[in-house]
């Protein structure tokens, strides 16, 4: 008895344990789906978050004279200041390397004894151009190297002189400079300056060998033909192609080749009808050096770049940003590798913007209007502000400024393009490349591919389903249905491979045949049907009408053969011997070998079994008494089919088509292999496309984890997920309703 009760107990425990385990297993399916959904969202979320600026540290530091420039190392551990006295001072920002945070670790004099700095010009984020009171110039780069000797990382600051440690005279006549700008590459360094005697000069240093390891050079002096009383800004582009010279409200653009010709003049349209006319107050060069930003005293910043127009290339205003309602924009600071910029107004209000996505990322006040120097950290993840007696460090969280809802789904005017466009171009070789993340072309490609596939698949799959379910004898149906469904099991990589390497060349060569097939196949069917209709009765019993699909196979094959045999003849007489040339030259349509037609046919084949199988089930399960009733009332088979069966089964057919569409939208391999994968916006049947799924397959392995590109690809996957979720749930819902309806009938 004791044993029995013990075993009864353990049986009970086992039973409830099994129940819990199985329930857990069942719920885990739901959990998996939710996990996928949530994880995709989790990866996508950061791209839609706004930027954040937080104070990190502040130090009281008293410099003996005004600070002209500041900066910080990549890891934000050491900052520096350059003062009017000509000193560079490095400060430790975090405890380490034997120094406390806020301590001075190195001070170095950058000018000769008794000299002072007249001006300091920031060139990009690293280079500082020093101009002494005698009108001579020196280029320095504050340098940080990491040292691991003591077991921990220590940042060692120093100063680098890319053009030598000597101050150089820039003006041949030594008249003194009021404004100066500069840019260099390995072979050449160009200074453009405005002298006190009102000359615009260009001085070129030509490296004897290569500036990266030898500072020896030759000097070439040149005067640029330009009359101006006063010049406000000079900016040389980093590629040494152009210089922008601002005089009041107009900007002159000179090319920097040997002639130094005036290329263009930019005269912004400012609001002039007010009592006090507006003026340009600041100018900056956007990363990449092809756009300039102009800030005015009405609080607006506008972006300008060169576009190709009917009158040739000219500078155009692309977009503008509302920085402030009443204050002028006194300074614009641009990031080195991205198209972000910061603005500053006299009261110390700052803003952060991104040009391509037109994003207004952040606004705030970081100082009381007393900042002497401002710098962006090299990785764009921090800011340094030197105000009177205080050094302040801020952290910036701004990983994905280039992604906004508008940038993804609306037309964007990219640098160098004549007008706003939808473009997907995620990567390029250069660092300051403007990434073009428009999801429109690839979403369009997805829809295009699915449409062509459905155009091919739906007629065939539905007619086949109707016949198999309604007219076919049970014996034949048992053979035919699994055969067609077998197609669903075929790996899509094989369909894609055949489409790309076998079908695409055939279609290219026998294009007229494909058009002929559209006519030949239906007519061969009708002719065969009519021939059978006219057949004497004794033959009709031998070959019953229920064999129609088998009888039609040879007829269709003959029609297909005829179409292909006629193709070269047709090509010769109608299209001058080469259809492809005819299409491209005479019709002016681009022709890709791997085009939408190939994808439509190949993906159509992949979708046919899905639609066929479900539609067939829906038609087959229409209750028999409905059809019997209709037939008993005198309707023909065909009338019964159209008026009763299809009408009753229509929700099921709809859900079959939905399922097919869902499959076509998400199909990857066929599209990847059967199209050229170019993201274009064109409905043409002779051109390819790039779909969301193929785009993920192509670009995902190369995208950097956590980058905007990576997250946008996740967004593409999410879009696919949601899309198919909606289709599948809808189809399933309709099917459930239908099943209930049938059972009530």
């Amino acid at each position: 008895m004791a044993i029995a009760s013990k075993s009864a107990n353990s049986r009970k425990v086992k039973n409830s344990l099994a129940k819990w385990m199985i329930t857990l297993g069942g719920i885990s399916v739901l959990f998996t789906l939710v996990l996928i959904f949530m994880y995709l969202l989790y990866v996508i979320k950061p791209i839609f978050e706004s930027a954040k600026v937080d104070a990190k540290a502040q130090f009281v530091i008293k410099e003996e004279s005004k600070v002209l420039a500041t900066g910080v190392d990549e890891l934000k551990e050491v900052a520096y200041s350059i003062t009017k006295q000509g000193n560079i001072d490095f400060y430790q920002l975090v405890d380490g390397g034997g120094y406390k945070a806020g301590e001075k670790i190195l001070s170095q004099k950058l000018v000769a004894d008794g000299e002072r700095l007249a001006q300091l010009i920031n060139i990009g984020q690293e280079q500082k151009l020093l101009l002494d009171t005698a009108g001579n110039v020196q280029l320095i780069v504050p340098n940080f190297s990491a040292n691991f000797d003591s077991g921990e990382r220590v940042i060692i600051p120093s100063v680098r002189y890319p053009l030598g440690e000597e101050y150089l005279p820039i003006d041949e006549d030594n008249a003194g400079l009021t404004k100066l700008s500069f840019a260099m590459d390995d072979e050449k360094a160009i200074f453009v300056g405005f002298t006190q005697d009102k000359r615009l000069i260009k001085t070129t240093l030509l490296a004897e060998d290569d500036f990266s390891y030898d500072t020896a050079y030759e000097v070439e002096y040149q005067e640029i033909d330009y009359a101006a009383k006063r010049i406000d800004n000079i900016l040389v582009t980093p590629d040494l192609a152009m210089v922008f010279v601002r005089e009041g409200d107009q900007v002159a653009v000179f090319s920097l080749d040997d002639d130094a010709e005036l290329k263009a003049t930019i005269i912004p349209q400012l609001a002039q009808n007010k009592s006090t006319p507006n003026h340009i107050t600041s100018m900056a060069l956007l990363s990449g050096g092809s756009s300039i930003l102009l800030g005015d005293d009405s609080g607006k910043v506008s972006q300008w770049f060169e576009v190709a127009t009917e009158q040739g290339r000219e500078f155009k205003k692309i977009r503008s940003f509302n920085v402030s309602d009443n204050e002028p924009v006194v300074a614009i600071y641009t990031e080195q590798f991205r198209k972000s910029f910061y603005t500053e107004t006299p009261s110390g209000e700052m803003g952060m913007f991104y040009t391509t996505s037109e994003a207004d990322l952040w606004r705030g006040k970081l100082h009381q209007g007393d900042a002497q120097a401002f710098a962006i950290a090299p990785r764009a993840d921090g800011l340094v502000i030197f105000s009177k007696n205080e050094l302040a460090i801020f952290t910036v969280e701004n990983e994905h400024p280039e992604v906004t809802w508008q940038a993804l789904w609306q037309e964007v005017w990219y640098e160098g393009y004549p007008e706003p466009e939808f473009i997907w171009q995620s990567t390029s070789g250069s660092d300051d490349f403007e990434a073009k993340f428009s999801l429109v072309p690839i979403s369009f490609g997805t829809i295009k591919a699915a449409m062509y596939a459905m155009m091919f698949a739906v007629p065939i799959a539905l007619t086949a389903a109707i016949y198999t379910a309604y007219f076919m004898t049970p014996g034949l149906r048992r053979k035919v249905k699994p055969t067609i469904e077998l197609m669903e099991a075929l790996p899509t990589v094989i369909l894609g491979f055949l489409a790309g390497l076998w079908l695409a060349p055939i279609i290219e060569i026998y294009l007229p045949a494909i058009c002929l097939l559209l006519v030949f196949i239906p007519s061969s069917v009708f002719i065969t049907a009519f021939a059978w209709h006219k057949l004497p009765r004794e033959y009709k019993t031998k070959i019953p009408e229920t064999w129609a699909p088998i009888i039609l196979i040879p007829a269709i094959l003959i029609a297909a053969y005829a179409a292909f045999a006629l193709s070269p003849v047709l090509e010769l007489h109608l299209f001058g011997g080469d259809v492809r040339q005819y299409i491209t030259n005479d019709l002016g349509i681009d022709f890709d070998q791997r085009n939408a037609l190939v994808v439509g046919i190949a993906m159509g084949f992949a979708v046919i079994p899905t639609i066929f199988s479900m539609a067939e089930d829906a038609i087959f399960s229409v209750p028999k008494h409905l059809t019997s009733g209709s037939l008993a009332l005198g309707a023909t088979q065909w009338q019964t089919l159209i008026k009763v069966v299809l009408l009753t089964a229509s929700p099921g057919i709809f859900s079959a088509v939905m399922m097919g569409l869902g499959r076509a939208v998400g199909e990857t391999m066929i599209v990847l292999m059967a199209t050229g994968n170019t993201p274009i916006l064109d409905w043409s049947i002779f051109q390819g496309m790039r779909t969301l799924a193929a785009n993920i397959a192509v670009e995902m392995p190369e995208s950097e984890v956590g980058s905007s590109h990576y997250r946008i690809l996740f967004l593409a996957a999410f879009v696919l997920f949601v899309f198919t979720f909606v289709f599948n749930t809808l189809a399933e819902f309709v099917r459930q309703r239908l099943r209930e309806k049938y059972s009530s009938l």
Partner: protein
Amino acid sequence: MNNWFKSGSPWVWLSAGGVSISLISVIGLLWLIASRGLSYFWPADIYQFEMTDEKGKNLTVIGEIYDRESIPVSQLVHLDLDIDKSAETLERLLIKTGNRELVSLDFRWILVPQINKTSLPEELVVIERRTNGNFYGYIEEIILDGQVVEQSQMAELVARVSDFQVEIEALQTSDIGAINYQIERTRLKERKHKLDNTLTPELAGQFKDKVAGLRAEYEVLEQKLMGLREKVSRDQIVMRAMDGQKVTINFEDILHVTFNNKLSFFAKLKLFFSQIAAFVTDDPREANTEGGVFPAIFGTVLMVLLMTVIVSPLGVVAAIYLHEYAGNNALTKLLRIAVINLAGVPSIVYGVFGLGFFVYMVGGSLDQLFYAETLPSPTFGTPGVMWSAITLAILTLPVVIVSTEEGLSRIPSAMRHGSLALGATKAETLWRIILPIASPAIMTGIILAIARAAGEVAPLMLVGVVKMAPNLPLDGNFPFLHLDRKFMHLGFHIYDVGFQSPNVEAARPLVYATALLLVTIIVALNMTAVSIRNRLREKYRMLEH
């Protein structure tokens, strides 16, 4: 006629046409793959064409006929050919001429009207080589150790060299590979101790000794390898190509020498089957465009087996829950929607999820916890066979669920009631009665899942498949099964060789052969599943009466 139209009969025929087109396309597709795939293995005739080209020069072309097509004469007018202008079309042949060291392309088109004489000389040989593809030509002489010898010795020489090659291969991959693997493991162990701060000088000495011992072993093996290499490179064969040039080929490069034109039908049949066997068991050569697909088969099978181990219990349990335990409530409805959606979500989305969640998130954390010594080179934080198996397990989960549930729903409820009435608990009824009867349905589900997984490529491209894996995920080095390794896959092999290889034309027959192999596996799996299911349905029908 009008009546005929009114009867609707033409439309019925038109819908029958839909069935016909579907049937033609399925059967035609299978036939296309089968014929192209199998013809790759059949020893082709080697033709010798004497021809005159458009400049009036006489030349000889030797090779296999690869393709033929007819083109309109109008496309060739610019070539200024001496041909019959009245004909509308003209036939041309694509000849595989091989001999890649002499000509840059191993294919050339020739126009049929330019051919003066076609022959099938019996002395023509085709040499299948390890590098540079096939060589077509005549044997001039065979050199054994510097001495010219009889041609009859050739078979013996080829056999001798291939024996040596096998030995070299074994030495390189298993013996030397094992030593390298052990040296690497010793280094990692040492590093692990260092990271944990447990590296005593004593231990360090032990590691050092071990590495030194292994290096000494390595030296010995390398000497042996050098010796074998020398033996292998001893003999040569001198060949005469189609343009009369003489080419010396080392025996170490030769895989087979066959006189295709001399072979009888049965000899060809034998060669055909041995070629198929070689295709299935050999490693790929020449950037996957030649040789066999063994690593791809192995990778596919291993990945699918791993996946089966994961998906079967999960799928069966979920199906049992849905059918036996779940009440008729909102949660069940949600679950069913989840199953339908898991089946409908595009496979690439699973790939993206697998890469982000499993590889970078889970794998990255595993590396931090257990494989800190190998960082920054990742162990599980990079695509591999385990993540592929798990990703595909989620992908195929609905297949197993749907099939198992269908099986469960066909079991008459009388059987459950009988078991419960006799005093069995629900769990016992499940284990003793329901599962055994439903097992063929579960089997069907698993087979269908395997078929689906074997053909899926898109997600694998993100989570673990590579074009060329240096090592199999299963080998003789401890711990034998390397779940972190990348693997090759038949489906990806098709994509890669067909679309990414530098010489697509030459690789195409191999792609057809691979496709045939994959289709055969998948169709066979599906047919097995369907037949099991059908037999099961019959059985249940009998049970009901």
